[in-house]
């Protein structure tokens, strides 16, 4: 088991407010790690730090030993750490399939000029992307909505599209932002299975931020718990469930108690 991602003392300050305070943990390749915590615990900010959408105030993030924190976001994406977004999709006016094709940009071999001129390499790329997009559509079970306009999609499908867009970049590490939010039990279970398949069939390491405790317990290999920007616990699902500090943090914050 190798370490793919290491967060070392990551800290983010906004003026006087410390959003993330000296958080450290490692992620093993091909595992699913969830970050949980009450509202305002700093989970989203942590994700932004990892994907380098905000600068660190201190600490660093390493991908296979190489520092990726504070690099330009598109560079980090190129290195394989890709973040999905909750509700937004790239092109409201394009279909699901077109969206996924475009998202393959990261892996294009032809240059922009090549695409402008329509060179052979560009055409080959386009064909490759179309094929890959179809594969992703099948994988995620999006066949029924493949030609639906992204602007017409309901929440659950948008979420799936977001994941599809993330997959198109062939990530090493995929950061999922609340993938189960707003879903009923069946939908959640379906999504849990999908995320598991991401790990099992495509070897993607998954980091997710979530509030849906049952789902988190079911899916995670490891869990990191944040409160007020600090890591208060880390461990397997059963360890976390029985951790008094975690229970207190959740009860104290008037959030749903941990339970199955």
């Amino acid at each position, binding site marked *: 088991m190798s370490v793919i991602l290491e967060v070392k003392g990551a800290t983010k300050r906004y003026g006087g407010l410390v959003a993330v305070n000296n958080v450290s943990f490692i992620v093993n390749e091909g595992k699913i790690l969830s970050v949980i915590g009450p509202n305002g615990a700093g989970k989203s900010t942590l994700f932004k730090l990892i*994907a380098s*959408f905000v600068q660190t105030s201190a600490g660093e993030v390493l991908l296979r030993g190489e520092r990726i924190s504070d690099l*330009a*976001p*598109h560079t980090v*994406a*190129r290195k394989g750490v*890709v*973040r*999905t*977004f909750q509700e*937004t*999709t*790239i*092109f*409201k*006016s394009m279909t699901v399939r077109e969206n996924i094709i*475009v*998202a*393959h*940009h*990261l*892996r*294009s071999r032809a240059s*922009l000029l090549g*695409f*402008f001129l*329509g060179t052979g390499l*560009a055409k080959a790329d386009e064909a490759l992307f179309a094929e890959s997009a179809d594969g992703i559509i099948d994988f995620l079970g999006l066949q029924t909505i493949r030609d639906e*306009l992204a602007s017409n999609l309901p929440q659950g499908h948008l979420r799936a599209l977001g994941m599809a*867009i*993330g997959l*198109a*970049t062939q990530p090493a590490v995929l950061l999922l932002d609340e993938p189960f939010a707003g879903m009923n039990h069946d939908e959640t279970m379906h999504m849990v299975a999908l995320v598991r398949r991401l790990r099992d069939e495509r070897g993607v390491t998954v980091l997710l931020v979530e509030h849906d405790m049952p789902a988190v317990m079911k899916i995670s290999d490891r869990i990191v718990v944040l409160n007020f920007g600090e890591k208060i616990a880390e461990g397997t699902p059963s360890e976390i469930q029985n951790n008094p500090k975690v229970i207190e943090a959740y009860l104290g914050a008037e959030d749903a108690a941990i339970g199955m």
Partner: protein
Amino acid sequence: MSNKQRWAAVAFFLLVVLVIVPAAIAASGRVDLYYTLTAVALLSIASAGVWLTFYIGRINIGQGAYALVGGYVSALLITKGDISFWWTLPLAGTFCALLSVLIGLPILRLRGVYFAMVTLVLTEVSRLTALAMPFTNGAKGITSIKLPAELNILGLTIIPDFNTLANPKLAFYWMAAIMMVLTYAVLWRIVNSRLGHLCRSLQQNEELASSIGVNIAWLRVLAYAISSFFGGIAGASFVAISQSLYPSSFQITDSVNFMLNCFLGGLGFVFGPMLGTLLLYFGWDLLFATGRFQLLIYSSLMIALMLWLPNGVLSLMDRKGVRQ
């Protein structure tokens, strides 16, 4: 629209612009219209540049600066360097593109009205620079610029010397029309290629665009450079026609007009700026007959249009599948 239909439309458009219109003008005797339409064509090139800046989500009220700079590059090269106008065209455009990279790198981070205001200042700066610099001859401008000489490549005369032409106005019209067609062809291709997709991803969600590997800073600079190239060649072309150039040739009003041309036509459509330029320029010209009331009627119509069609004229066509 299938490919065949598209090519047919293009051919038809070329026929109208290059053959039918000049024939109509010649027949009607209204030779002043040559200049009017030439101006429309050139202005629509500059407006196309502004449209491209909109495409990456920035409001550009500075195209007048590049038109002026392009004009001066061309004028100086012709008068002091004795270089043929035809070569100064790409040189002017390239110079503007490079200049815009320098300027764009720091300012493209700004958004919305902030970016708009900086570009507004840019237009003023270029005018003042033209006034103040020793080699630009200040307020007296550069005059007596020669008509375009012949373009001779490998012994073949591709474009004859304008001094020898019986009807240089028609020649200028063709020049402008062809440049306009080429410009819009490039624009159309950009929009409908991957480059266009990426620009639209910038507009919609910059963070998501970054996630799929778009280098947003670089893409913006690229679009801005192309936009300024268009501004430069438009300005240089005007120099050839009017054979003179002053610091006041392109001012803030012009920058604003380029922007207005885009709005009016509709920012969601590649041919929006072409239509907008045509309407605004002709509209203004036609209203000349109303004398003192010209500006009043013009502005009232503009306001009325904003109230009725706040998304531009072409938004009338706004059905799914038509919008780009």
